[in-house]
């Protein structure tokens, strides 16, 4: 290769490697702050402060959803299989919200076990299939009908 072109190519590769390394280091050092939500077990481990807003993510524990007799208030348990937190929410839930579904709730801890949410979002997983296939899989016990994935 022509020496000038070789020099230009090496210069560009050095720039690319430099930028790549710089961003890798930045991303690595920011990894805790880049998390969109924390899991119920993180609450216990990290000793998250009360009265400060953060997002809690996990699965809605099956059988835990209690709706108020009138109004929109709802109480359910969010679990990651290890720890669980009770969530209180007064508002409109997304259509995908159901038991066993991944959710992300934004709000604050009232006590160590009670999380008061201001917003609840539903998370879904990367599986797409027709309803009949989902039913067939469920009959065989291979598939959890309500898509999971908040631990992803």
């Amino acid at each position, binding site marked *: 290769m022509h020496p000038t072109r070789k020099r230009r190519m090496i210069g560009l590769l050095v720039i*690319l490697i430099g930028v790549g390394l710089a*961003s890798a280091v930045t*991303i690595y050092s920011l990894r805790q702050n*880049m998390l969109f939500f924390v899991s119920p077990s993180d609450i216990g481990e990290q000793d998250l402060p009360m009265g400060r807003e953060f997002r809690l993510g996990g699965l809605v524990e099956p059988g835990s959803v209690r709706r108020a007799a009138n109004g929109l208030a709802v109480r359910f348990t969010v679990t990651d299989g290890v720890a669980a937190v009770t969530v209180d929410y007064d508002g409109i839930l*997304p*259509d995908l919200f159901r038991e066993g579904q991944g959710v992300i709730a934004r709000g604050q801890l009232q006590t160590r076990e009670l999380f008061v949410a201001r917003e609840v979002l539903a998370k879904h997983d990367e599986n797409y299939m027709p309803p009949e296939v989902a039913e067939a899989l469920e009959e065989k016990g291979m598939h959890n009908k309500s898509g999971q994935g908040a631990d992803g």
Partner: protein
Amino acid sequence: MNPIMKFIHLMGSPPWFYQFSGRLIPWLWGLFVVLAACGLYLGLVKAPPDYLQGESARIMYIHVPSAWMSMMIYALMAVMGFVGLVWHVRIAEILAISSAPIGALFTAVALASGSLWGRPTWGTYWVWDARLTSELVLLFLYLGVIGLYSAFDEPRKAARAASLLALVGLVNLPIIHYSVTWWNTLHQGSSIGASGSSIHPSMLWPLLIMALATKFYYAANLLSRARIRLIEQDQRKNWVRELLQEGTA
């Protein structure tokens, strides 16, 4: 010289590139129209609704191909920018800068369709999670490349500056791709990867056809834009004069 190298050398010649791409473009548009019609019919009419999301999962047939294209075009733009910077091939510079508006369009479509999909499924139009934010950064990178190019009067200098920005922005591509594995995000993980696909075949086929259709759209649009840019830059050169005389005669 082997045939591939010969072809690459020929593509570097403006009159030859102009002629060759002119013959290719109608075919590319034709393939795009046929594939997009098939893909949209299969996706929006024939494919079953999703077991969880129902009909709203059909946004996938627009959203996913656009998001793939937004990243693929960026990578190609950077590669052509690199060729332009190292070998000073003018056609490569033109192809790189002509890719930017098409890539920006696909990024905007991916963001907008994702937002419309997010509302009925997640319950929100927008969140600042790592996947959504890094895709928005990609849009700004495209706009930056276009803006930087327009800031210079001299097209060769402009292309070099814009190519360098495109190359530096390349670091964003792995961030977009791995954002859903590295961090907790609201956006779900990848459905299609090295280990296969978690999309049922009845829904996967329309998606793949749409993905192929968008590639032909890019090729046709890119070559059309590159031809216009090329004759604009070469308007005082002999080969363009001859071309125009042929057209009027």
